[in-house]
């Protein structure tokens, strides 16, 4: 365990940024980046997994959906910004891709989902389940962002 002095440092307001290509092989790098920060500010193992998973799902969506349109001139990138506060972690994940309408996504009916053996369609639902606050800001081709917050338990 870190000593108290360094915990004190890490609990201050800090900001971390990561920018990398939207390739699935980079999911591992993104998860390690976010989990390292989450661990440092005191989330437990289960919570770290939840944060990693929510971030992974958002990034996998960028990789699978954001840059489908091959005519798009933009570099295929993922931006991850993490801010730590005394009581929480805030993660923003953004792309410059085609965008989508988050309002139009239905909450999956898990019973029906399992009965019909669907694949996919779980990512956004998982993010909302795992994190305390989730918001989308969509500007196709400019910046499509999901912001997710998780609070440290007292």
């Amino acid at each position, binding site marked *: 365990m870190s000593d108290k002095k360094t915990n004190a440092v890490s609990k201050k307001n800090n900001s971390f940024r990561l920018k990398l290509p939207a390739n*699935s092989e980079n999911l591992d790098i993104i998860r390690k980046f976010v989990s390292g920060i989450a661990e440092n500010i005191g989330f437990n193992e*289960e919570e770290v997994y939840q944060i990693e998973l929510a971030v992974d799902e958002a990034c996998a969506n960028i990789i*699978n959906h954001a840059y489908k349109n091959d005519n798009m001139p933009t570099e295929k990138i993922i931006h991850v910004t993490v801010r730590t506060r005394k009581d929480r972690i805030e993660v923003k994940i953004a792309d410059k891709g085609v965008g989508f309408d988050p309002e139009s996504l239905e909450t999956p009916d898990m019973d029906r989902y*399992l009965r019909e*053996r669907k*694949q996919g369609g*779980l990512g956004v639902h998982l993010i909302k389940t795992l994190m305390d606050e989730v918001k989308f800001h969509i500007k196709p081709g400019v910046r499509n962002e999901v912001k997710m917050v998780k609070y440290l338990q007292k």
Partner: protein
Amino acid sequence: MANFEVVREDKGEISVLNVHGYLDAHTAPDFENALTKLLQENRFKIVVNLNGLQYISSAGLGVFMGFIEEVRENSGDIKLAEVSQKVFKVFDLLGFPSLYEFYEKASEAIVKFTN
């Protein structure tokens, strides 16, 4: 990155897939290939030993969903075994225990097939 591996072990008509590492959108195709191969060989009695699995995302969960129907139509099953508590919580969150059988030990899952 060498962060996922599937090792197959055949025991009579039962096949055990031992999975290790991180099962995400990048590595799900490797797992998919292992299951596709079993089905091509008409092997439908499948135990997936998750003992070495450290992480699963929805892309990994989707692979299980993609095969279960065909497997059961052929009087087989995909039974899961030795999943860690941490990883089980993700399966549980999405209601998988109502669709798949989970066993503490791979050997128990194998016995279920032979009964």
